[in-house]
């Protein structure tokens, strides 16, 4: 059993997805989905433990030896990401029952959970696999189900957003496919570890360069890195609230994982960061993204959309960390993956509670919410403070590492810009605070969000504070993982 953990991680939700259609009753399907997600969480915790104790695990599918067969390779990096994805998915799912019941028609709820599990399986697959082509397959599994999930949104705009995302996503995935094709042409292998060994001697080849360019571009599309982010705000703001929370907490993290995996493990840090001016590119794009997206966020009236732009900005920070490329900087990125998942998961769940009561979440509707929905609003304030990066919240920890990394490398301007970027977050978060606490309510008869949503929200918000104070777990794991990433590249 223990030896099969890597495959179990992926196959469990994948098999569970069609089973949902057999169960049919929405309540049972929800329970079933939750159970599957929880089981996946346990698997990922066991994996993380095992990897932390004994080093990377290699699992060959069907007994076919790598590099011919498909290998699942779990090291600290993907064990960490698997943990983030499963943990956040489980928490988000606990809130799903209440929110989905309200937002979706009964006959669509079963489909919703089926798609959710498929998307979940796809994301886990991307992270777990050690095979480049397999990445593409799982990417498409998760993407296709994501398009459908977004299209489930109430507004007709959801359809349009889903369509736009489908076009962008397919182009991105096809770029990745082309890149993988080039790599296969040059090396004759699809196994990532094998690729990593064969690419360095070929680093002068233009084909490898083209492969890198295609893969990089494809991933950036999925990652919604500025300026390829245009699909994200629409998709996030139109999708059902639970989907938004799930995607914000997990999907971008997985795309970021892919970027890390390809730049650091497959192509190697020498190729990616010293051969190409990728460091400048990533730092530059990241910072421009932080500013552009944050400034746009300030002017959004739809709060879901505002937070979606904020997500684009936060992706900018993570990419800056990759661009700087030292151990501290990578650690900052890995930490922020986890921390951002906690913040945005909590914030979007809080919005789910708002949508449950108000039907939408525009800034005008926030007036007086401090009094009518005190717990939801308090969650938004704490989550927002974490987003800004105040001490004693997780946001502070990752920002600390990022700034320290920048100063270590004498990149003072980066440090200053990172800091200024977080001030922009103050501007858009405070817009909410002012409306909620210092303006009279528009409608008096608004009730607090139901416990079914409130409890998971506060679970994540509490995690924001807990991991901001007791930072041992994330700091230790990410420190080891970033060492591993750089060490792995040096081999």
């Amino acid at each position, binding site marked *: 059993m223990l030896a099969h953990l890597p495959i179990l991680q992926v196959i469990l939700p994948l098999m569970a997805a069609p089973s949902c259609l057999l169960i049919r009753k929405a309540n049972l399907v929800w329970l079933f989905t939750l159970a599957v997600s929880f089981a996946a969480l346990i698997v990922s915790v066991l994996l993380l433990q095992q990897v932390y104790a004994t080093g990377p695990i290699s699992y060959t599918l069907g007994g076919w030896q790598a590099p011919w067969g498909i290998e699942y390779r779990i090291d600290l990096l993907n064990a960490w990401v698997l943990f983030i994805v499963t943990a956040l998915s489980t928490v988000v799912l606990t809130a799903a029952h209440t929110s989905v019941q309200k937002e979706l028609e009964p006959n669509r709820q079963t489909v919703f959970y089926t798609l959710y599990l498929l998307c979940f399986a796809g994301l886990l697959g991307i992270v777990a696999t050690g095979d480049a082509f397999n990445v593409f397959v799982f990417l498409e599994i998760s993407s296709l189900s994501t398009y459908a999930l977004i299209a489930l949104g109430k507004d007709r705009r959801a359809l349009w957003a889903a369509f736009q995302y489908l076009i962008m996503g397919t182009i991105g995935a096809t770029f990745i496919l082309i890149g993988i094709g080039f790599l296969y042409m040059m090396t004759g292998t699809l196994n990532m570890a094998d690729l990593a060994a064969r690419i360095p001697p070929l680093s002068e080849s233009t084909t490898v360069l083209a492969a890198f360019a295609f893969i990089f571009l494809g991933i950036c599309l999925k990652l919604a890195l500025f300026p390829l982010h245009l699909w994200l705000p629409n998709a996030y703001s139109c999708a059902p609230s639970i989907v938004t929370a799930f995607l914000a907490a997990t999907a971008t993290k997985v795309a970021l994982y892919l970027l890390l995996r390809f730049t650091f493990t497959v192509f190697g840090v020498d190729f990616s960061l010293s051969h190409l001016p990728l460091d400048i590119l990533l730092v530059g794009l990241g910072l421009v993204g932080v500013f552009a997206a944050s400034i746009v966020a300030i002017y959004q009236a739809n709060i879901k959309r505002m937070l979606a732009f904020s997500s684009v900005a936060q992706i900018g920070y993570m990419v800056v960390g990759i661009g700087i490329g030292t151990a501290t900087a990578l650690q900052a990125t890995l930490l922020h993956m986890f921390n951002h998942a906690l913040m945005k998961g909590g914030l979007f769940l809080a919005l789910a509670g708002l949508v449950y009561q108000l039907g939408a979440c525009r800034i005008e509707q926030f007036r007086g919410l401090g009094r009518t929905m005190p717990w939801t609003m308090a969650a938004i304030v704490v989550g927002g403070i974490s987003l800004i990066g105040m001490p004693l919240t997780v946001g502070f920890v990752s920002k600390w590492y990022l700034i320290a990394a920048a100063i270590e490398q004498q990149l003072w301007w980066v440090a200053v810009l990172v800091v200024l970027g977080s001030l922009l977050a103050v501007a858009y978060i405070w817009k909410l605070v002012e409306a909620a606490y210092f303006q009279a309510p528009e409608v008096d008869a608004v009730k607090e969000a139901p416990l079914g949503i409130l409890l998971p929200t506060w679970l994540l918000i509490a995690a924001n504070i807990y991991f901001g104070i*007791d930072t041992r777990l994330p700091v230790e794991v990410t420190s080891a993982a970033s060492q591993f990433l750089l060490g792995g590249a040096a081999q």
Partner: protein
Amino acid sequence: MNSASLLQLSLVIPLLAVVGIQLTARRENVREAVSLIAASALFATVAQLYLPLLNGQTIAVHWLDILPGLALAFRVEPLGLMFALVASFLWIITTLYAIGYMRGHGEQNQTRFYSLFAVSIGAVMGIAFAENLFTLFIFYELLTLCTYPLVTHAGTDKARQGGRTYLGILLGTSVGFFLLAIIATWLLAGTLSFKQGGIFSPGTSVALLSVLLGLFVFGVGKAAIMPFHRWLPAAMVAPTPVSALLHAVAVVKAGVFVLLKICLLIFGIDTLKSIPATEWLLYLAGVSILFASIIALRQQNLKKRLAYSTVSQLGYITLGALLATSAGMTGSALHIVMHAFGKITLFFCAGAILVAAHKTEVNELRGLGRQMPVTMTAFFVASLCIIGIPPTGGTWSKWYLMLGTFEAEQWILMALLMISSLLSIAYLLPIPLQAFFGGKKPLEIEAGTAVVLKEAPLPSVIALTVTASACVYLLLYPDIFYRLIAAGI
């Protein structure tokens, strides 16, 4: 009870007070009794740390490590204790005053007001007792966040506008410069713990230290050094007790206290002297003093005038700290205390005038001395304290500051201090003098009858009498604080 637990208790009492205030929100009298009791208990707790500390006992608590090497830890050191003593004592008085003011003025959301007040004091205790810059930063930010709702208390457009400026500048400078400076210090020195004589090794590049000092001075926005002073006048939209305790004492004093502590315990006097930037920043503080005085002179709104006077006086304290001489530091620390008592009295008076006579502008106060003799007398005494004339404690701090400029041979600055003192006479003293001797007696003429005594509610009058007497008392017995300062510098 041993000293370490007393230290923890002083951090916990304000939080307990919040719980108590929230629980008794329905019954006004009980709620305010809780506030008063908590304030007195806090003062008693802090006061008990006084003797053990002077006897050389080390009082420290280590809570936990947030990141490796970054601890949430507290240690009592003399300057911190001085600050804590002043703040906790004035909390009692201000609560007393607030009871009269808030009721007399019929303010809304009083429970929120008292709770946040207690949290603010808790944050001040954290700042006073922080063992390292990191802990200090946490409480510094907490203080900003929990005073923000107090500034916007009224909820009007103007209040929200003021709140935005307040939050924008304070958070902006602290995250933009202060945090950056802290991280850089950490990377440079390997530690953030306060240490006598500074933490930088002698070989550290002077240019880098210059940049750091600049970042610190501008980053501690609460010290209101120009050009980052605008939040202070903006914060005057708050209810008067808030202006009194927070914007005359807790918040701004937290700012200058942090600066003093950084100069003394992060850089150290010797390092500070060797940095070329110190000179520039000294002149900046001088300019800040002078300009703020001139602006104060032109303000017609009483609270605004007092606010600019605060900006100017904060410049004195910063200047004293940057002089890097022992007299300068002493003067700086003493002025934290003296200015606290003086300015809080002035704000109390401003609030009392608002509640009793509904006046906010300076030119409306002529002849008011006959109606509110106690208030205006207190105003007079406190003005003397701010200016630094006997019989008030302000004399001592101004004396040491002058001595500091003398020691450092900064003749220009010395002249500047004198000019500014003259200016402060010009913008403060006419107010009480005209109130008593204002020729027109407009009130009497309008009413056509003899002036009736009409002071503010009794708790408020008691409060301002106590602080005004303290100003005089401190002339005779500055020793309480002087001993602490001598031990600290």
